[in-house]
C-alpha cells in the first residue's frame, strides 16, 4: 500500500516494508508531445554525513557519476526524453551497503537546462518520483511532480535517513531554484 505523502511526512521504511534491503527510486515522465525542446529530467542522490554535506564529490550520484565508492547507490542510466513506459530513470539503493558515516541520502529531481528552455515540472506530462521496494516492486511513496510541483524546476524529493537503527523516508517536496549545479553546491559538492 503506497503511502501518500504530504510535505514533511515520514514513513519508516523498516516498518512499511520490514526486511527492506534494496530500494529503488523511480522517476518517470512522458515524452514531449508538442513541439519545442524536449524534457530531460534527471534523478540524483546525495550521500550526506551528519553535517548535511557530502563526504566527497564522489557522494554525488547522478548521470555522470553513476555509483559511489561503496557501490551502495547505483544510478541505472540517464534518459534524455522520457521515452518509454513506467520509470524512465531509476536509482538503486542497497541500504545494507550504505557506509556507516552516511547519515542520510537526499533524493532530488531536476530539469536539465530548465532555465534556457523555460521549462518547469508543470509543463511535463505525467512526471512523478517514487520510492519502491526493489524486491517485489511495491511502491512506498510517490510524488506527482506535474501536478504538485508545477512551477518548480528542481526539487528535493525526500530523504532516506537512519533513525535508531532503522531506515526512514521523509518526504520533503521542497522546490529549489537554479538547477542541479546550485543544488549540488548546496550539499557541499565542488562544482
Amino acid at each position, binding site marked *: 500500500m503506497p503511502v501518500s505523502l504530504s510535505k514533511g511526512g515520514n514513513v519508516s521504511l523498516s516498518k512499511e516494508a520490514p526486511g527492506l534491503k534494496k530500494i529503488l527510486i523511480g522517476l518517470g515522465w512522458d515524452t514531449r508531445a*508538442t*513541439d519545442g525542446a524536449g524534457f530531460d529530467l534527471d534523478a540524483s542522490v546525495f550521500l550526506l554525513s551528519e553535517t548535511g554535506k557530502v563526504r566527497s564529490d564522489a557522494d554525488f550520484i547522478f548521470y555522470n557519476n553513476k555509483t559511489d565508492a561503496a557501490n551502495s547507490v547505483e544510478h541505472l542510466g540517464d534518459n534524455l*526524453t522520457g*521515452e*518509454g513506459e513506467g520509470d524512465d530513470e531509476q536509482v538503486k539503493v542497497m541500504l545494507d551497503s550504505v557506509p556507516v558515516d552516511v547519515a542520510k541520502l537526499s533524493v532530488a529531481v531536476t530539469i536539465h537546462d530548465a532555465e534556457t528552455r523555460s*521549462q518547469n515540472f*508543470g*509543463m511535463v506530462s505525467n512526471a512523478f518520483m517514487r520510492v519502491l521496494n526493489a524486491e517485489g516492486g511495491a511502491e512506498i511513496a510517490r510524488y506527482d511532480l506535474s501536478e504538485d510541483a*508545477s*512551477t518548480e524546476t528542481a526539487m528535493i524529493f525526500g530523504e532516506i535517513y537512519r533513525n535508531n537503527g532503522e531506515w526512514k523516508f521523509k518526504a520533503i517536496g521542497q522546490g529549489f531554484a537554479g538547477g542541479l549545479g546550485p543544488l549540488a553546491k548546496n550539499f557541499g559538492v565542488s562544482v
Partner: protein
Amino acid sequence: MLTLARGQKQKLADLTPAMQIGAQLRALAPGLAFDFSCFGVDGNDKLSDDRYFVFFNQKSSPEGAITLGADGEFALDLARLPASIQKLVFVVTIDGDGTLSQLQSGHFSLGTSGSEVARFEFRGSDFGSEKAIIAAEIYRKDAWRLAAVGQGFSGGLDALLAHFGGQQMEEDVPTPQTVSKPAPAPPPREVAPAEAAPKKVTLTKADSTFKIDLSKSSGEIVATAQWIDNGDNRSDNDDLDLRAGILFPDGTMSIVTCTAPGSLQNKPFVFHLGDVKSATRDKPGRETMKVNPQISASQRGKIAIVFSIYSAIANGPVAIASLKPVIELEHGNQTVKCDLDFSSNKDAKKKFVYTYVIGLAIIDGNEVQISPGGQVSPPASEATPWLEWDENGGVNLTFTGPAVLKSGGKFLTGLLNVGNSKRYV
C-alpha cells in the same frame, strides 16, 4: 485573481466554487487572424466524440455544456459534462500564415459572474514556429483543475487534430479552412541513443529517426510488419503483403516480396519468411523478413531498405490506414517500432491506395538509421516506392518504381510498366 505561470496547475475549487464559468481566449498580433476552439477529450486525451470539438463551425457541445460565443468567449457548465469528457483543451490557431512567435499578447482567463478569477498570459517570446497552441486545460483529477499550458505545434491545426486522434474528423465534421492547407512539416526529431539495456523505441512521427547499433549483437535484423482486421466484416480485404525495396551502393534496386522471397546469404541479403492472408482484431496479420546484418559491410557501402505494405487490386477497396499497419525492426535487444497514425494523413485514407511506406532503414556499416517514412502511392497506382541516393548521402523516395504484381503474369505486369525504364535487379 490568480495569475498563472506557464505550466502552473491549480484546483478550480481554490478559485471558485462555481461550475458555470466563463473562459476567454485572446490573441493579438498585427496582421494575423486567430481561431479559438475547445476540444473535449477522453481519459486518453483523445477526441473520441467529435461533437466535443467546439469551434466556429460547431459552436456548442451536444448538451450545451461548452458553447462558443463571440471573440473567443466560452460559456462552460462543468456539471453538465458527461463523465466521458475528462479534459477541456483550449486552443489558439492561426488562420493563415504566420507563427505564434509574432504574438504581441494573448491570454486565457476564467471568470464567474463577471469577475475574473484566474488569468494566464502568454506572448510571442514563449513560442517559436508554432501555428497552433494549447493555451490552457480544465481537467478532472479528483476534482476539476486548471492548467496553464502554453505549448503547441508548428504543424498547426492538422498536428493538433493528429495529437488528439480526431479520426472521424476529416470525414464527418466540417473542419476549419486551415485544415485543407498543407501544414509545414515539424522539425525532425532525434530520439535519445539506445542504452545497453533492452530498449524498445516507438516512432510515431514520419520524420522521427532512431539508430540501431549492429555491433551489440550478432543476429539478423528481423523486420515484422503487423496489421489488424479493419472490422468491416469482410475477410477478403485484410490480405496485405510486406515488401522491401533494397537500394545498393551502385544505385541498383532489388525487391523482396512473398512471391520473390530473396535470400539471406546471397544478394539481396533480405529474406521474406512467407505470406499471411488474413487478420482479425485478436489475431493480427503478421509478415516477417530477415536482413543480413553484414549487408552493408559486404557491399562496401550504404544500403537503404524501404519497407512497404501492399494490398492487391483484386483484394477489393480497402483503405490500408484502417488496418493500422506497423513495423518493428529488431536486432538483439534493440527494437524500433514504426507506428504511424495513417488516419491523420488524408492521402492514406483514400481507397484504392495500394502501397504504404511503413519503414525506411539506412544501413551504414554497423549503424542502422530507421524512420517510419509514411509516404503512400497515388490512388489507383501500382507504382512501387523507388529509392535513389541523393548528393548528401541520403535517399530520395518517389513512387516511380515498376509495378510488381503478386499474380497476373508478365503480360499484365508489362502493361502496367509501359514507359517506365526502371527495373528491379
